[in-house]
């Protein structure tokens, strides 16, 4: 079933292909006309050429397109926030269709960008090249079927306003609830057959184009599709929709809200007076557990290790410090100095792989490695919704590559990195921590060793 849920971003709505040829026809037609009429229509031809030039000019000046080389083929090869939207559109060939459908005029000048193509250098890192996906940062070119709630959510995700596996999962399900609420089955169709393929799919596709779906989102979407397929085809729309919305609420409550509470409680019971808890970046679950332990009156210190470029740990440090917890904050360069003081290491998860490895924010593996070297217990907090049957041996086969421009410090030396030949920036989001570094995984169904991940995952799936 993995094939069904994360629809690859590169196959957007086929329906609009029709638009493209009609635009494309323009140019060949012009050319065809001019070529034979060498003798007669000199003037006419000139006028036409001028017109084409003007059109090209207009296109080039379009704000979203930017002046730089529209239509260059290499992904992520252009900087600047404004240009990113355009980049997204022009990058993948199918996406161009999405673009042209909304603004048919643009298709006319396909000939102009061609000469610039060879000038651009591929800025993607070779061994991560299979992972590069253009990321959408504007609404331009979104399919018209995309619900406004989902549109907003997509942008929030791509700007990391909503960040974190579970937060994204919950937000997605909430948005889908809105989609389902506003859905009416067209005549001659049934909800079961129509909703998933025609309404939900474009939403999912759009979300995936904003930022690749998290593994927990994939799990939840798979569950939702299953739920929809189980709806009785004779059930009236209103009831079916109500049922689905309730099911989503229950799902969120059971798999996330309650699960979080259970995990926080069980982790808090492991924190003792005098402990020094080391954690990396920010996990809402770790935060909940620490806050819970603090509210239970335990006396302990927290060390937050953080890294560039997201600095998520800073938010965690801030909110813990505001509660009055004693917090030490350092970047990953201070890791080996601080690991000695720690008594326990708590880590959040993006996903747990079936081979017991932890898939989490890049840098987590280093923390676990250092903790292991210093003989400190590493405890992972993870809801079972984040378990996946996928396996991973390294962090390269499966990962998410964030835009390299996030690494550029404003005003720093990197500002013009795209002009430096053979220089590449790489910004992967996750890494894979070997199972032998993890001592315990705290889930809502109990505390298990990493070897038990596939077992729990299977049990969870059988229940559904």
């Amino acid at each position, binding site marked *: 079933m993995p094939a069904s849920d994360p629809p690859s971003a590169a196959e957007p709505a086929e329906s609009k292909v029709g638009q493209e040829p009609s635009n494309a026809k323009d140019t060949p037609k012009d050319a065809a006309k001019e070529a034979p009429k060498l003798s007669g229509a000199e003037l006419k031809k000139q006028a036409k050429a001028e017109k084409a030039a003007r059109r090209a000019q207009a296109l080039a000046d379009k704000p979203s397109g930017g002046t730089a080389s529209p239509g260059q083929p290499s992904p992520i090869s252009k900087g600047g926030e404004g240009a990113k939207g355009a980049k997204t559109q022009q990058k993948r060939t199918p996406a161009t269709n999405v673009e042209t459908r909304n603004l048919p005029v643009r298709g006319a000048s396909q000939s102009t960008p061609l000469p610039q193509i060879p000038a651009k250098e591929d800025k993607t890192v070779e061994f991560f090249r299979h992972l590069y996906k253009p990321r959408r940062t504007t609404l331009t070119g979104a399919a018209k079927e995309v619900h406004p709630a989902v549109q907003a959510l997509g942008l929030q995700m791509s700007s990391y306003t909503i960040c974190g596996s579970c937060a994204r999962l919950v937000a997605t399900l909430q948005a889908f609830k809105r989609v389902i609420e506003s859905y009416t089955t067209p005549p001659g169709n049934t909800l079961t057959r129509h909703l998933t393929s025609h309404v939900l799919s474009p939403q999912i596709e759009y979300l995936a184009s904003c930022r690749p779906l998290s593994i927990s989102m994939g799990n939840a979407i798979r569950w939702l599709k299953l739920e929809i397929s189980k709806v009785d085809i004779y059930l009236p729309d209103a009831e079916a929709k109500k049922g689905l919305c309730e099911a989503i609420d229950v799902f969120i409550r059971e798999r996330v809200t309650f699960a979080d509470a259970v995990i926080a409680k069980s982790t808090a019971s492991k924190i003792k007076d005098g402990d020094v808890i080391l954690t990396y970046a920010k996990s809402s679950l770790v935060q909940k557990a620490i806050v819970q332990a603090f509210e239970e009156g335990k006396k302990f210190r927290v060390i937050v290790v953080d890294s560039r470029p997201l600095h998520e740990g800073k938010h965690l440090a801030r909110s813990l410090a505001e509660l009055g917890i004693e917090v*030490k904050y350092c970047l990953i360069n201070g890791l080996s100095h601080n690991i000695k003081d720690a008594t326990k290491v708590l880590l959040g998860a993006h996903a747990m792989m079936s081979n017991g490895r932890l898939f989490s924010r890049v840098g987590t593996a280093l923390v676990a490695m250092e903790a292991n070297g210093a003989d400190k217990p590493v405890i992972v907090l993870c809801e079972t919704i984040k378990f996946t049957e996928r396996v991973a041996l390294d962090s390269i086969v499966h990962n998410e590559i964030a835009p390299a421009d996030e690494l550029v410090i404003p005003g720093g030396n990197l500002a013009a990195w795209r002009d430096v030949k053979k220089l590449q920036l790489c910004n992967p989001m996750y890494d894979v921590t070997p199972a032998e570094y993890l001592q315990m995984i705290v889930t809502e169904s109990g505390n298990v060793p990493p070897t038990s991940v596939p077992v729990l995952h299977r049990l969870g799936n059988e229940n559904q």
Partner: protein
Amino acid sequence: MAPAQAGYAPDLSAFLKSLKVQSLEKSIENLISLFKRRQIKNSRPCAIATAHLLRQVVAKSKWSDLGKLLERIQQVGQRLMEAQPREMVVGNIVRRVLGMIREEAKEDRNEEFSDSGSNSQKASPRREPSDLSLSKAGAVPPIGTFSPLRFESNIGPDAAFESSSNDDVFGKSTRPPLMTSHASYAVLNGVPVQQSMFNLLSTNSSPSSTPVAASPVGKSAPSSAAISHRISTATLDLKAEIMNGIEEIIDELLQVDEQIAAYAQEHIHSNEIILTHSSSGSVQKFLLKAAEKRKFTVIVAESYPNDHEATHAAVTGKTSQDEKNADEMSVGTFMKPLAAAGITVVLMTDATIFAIMSRVNKVILATHAVIANGGLIAAAGARIIARAAKVHKTPVIVVSGIYKLSPDYPFEFESLIEYGDPGSVIGYDDGPLVDKLEVDNPLFDYVPPDLVDLYITNLGAHAPSYLYRIVADHYKPEDINFHKPELQF
């Protein structure tokens, strides 16, 4: 402090210029305050500044005998080391200068005895070491096949003590007294014919052992007064030699990167992926040298809160302030960015190291200081890199000049770690947060020797376990703890 050069902030080049015009004491004070304010930092600038200052000390201060000079240099050295104890190269350079002076002293004394006071006609300084070592060799059965330099490095610890005791040995050793008058001939003229003639006369068959035969007969226990008298007459010569010795050390400092880079092609093959950390001139030259012949990929971890700007500048090819200084210092150190040499350069954050380590063939680290146990002090983050490499069984190569090799053996490594400005971790503009948090920003990491596979120095490649031997070759045992008299015997 001494007036800074008008126009620019005091740094290494300003200091070196001021050295020529300022009085000695002022220069010392100046350097101490530059160290303290970290206006001269990092190993190489510190080493160069120290060497230049010591040369001034030798040149400008009044000293009548070597004992006084040693004392003076120890004094200055101690002050410099106290100014910035974590720049271990300062101590290294001081020790090397001390060792070099002791060496000269020993030679001088031997010279003294052998040619009975005719210092002014001393043979070229190049000749002396071999004379000296052979004189030692002479105590042993006839050899002459030994490489003199090799042998010299094994000569026992305490120069003064040993030489006098050797004198005794020589005194008793069955050398006929009649040689004395001829000995100076051999050294002065060095004419082969004469040497062979001495061989005829000598009981020893080795031609080069002649000067020894001449040695100390009749004055087996020279009084210190006598020595100081002779030395004072020799001061001028000695001074020139010691200055020469310091010049050699400075030359070594300037050339060390090129020398290390010469080994590059032995260690890097085509299409490798090499991980390095932070920005270091040594590593960059090393990789550039390898890039002349091979194409490979370099991944640079940026070493975020402290050195990231320099790293970014290095990868994009903008020269930072430090590099400009380096350019002034040594001719032809213009550094082109690696990318311009045809290497693919990938810049990544420190956190991604574990993720990409499975693709890395070799890790090349620069270092701040190397300690005698084979461990090293390097920019913070180096330790996790080395450990991640260990986990992935990726070899770790450390590129370092010999001058960074310190004879110190600290038993408590935390004392070597310097902590930097926490403002670069959380900006002071974030006031409320700064108030509530404890923020930590170490500048250095201690990397234990078991995480390092290979050291490449200007002398070649060594296993970490061999470094103690190189330490023994470069520093005299009596100098190792000169700044801590309580540790000396």
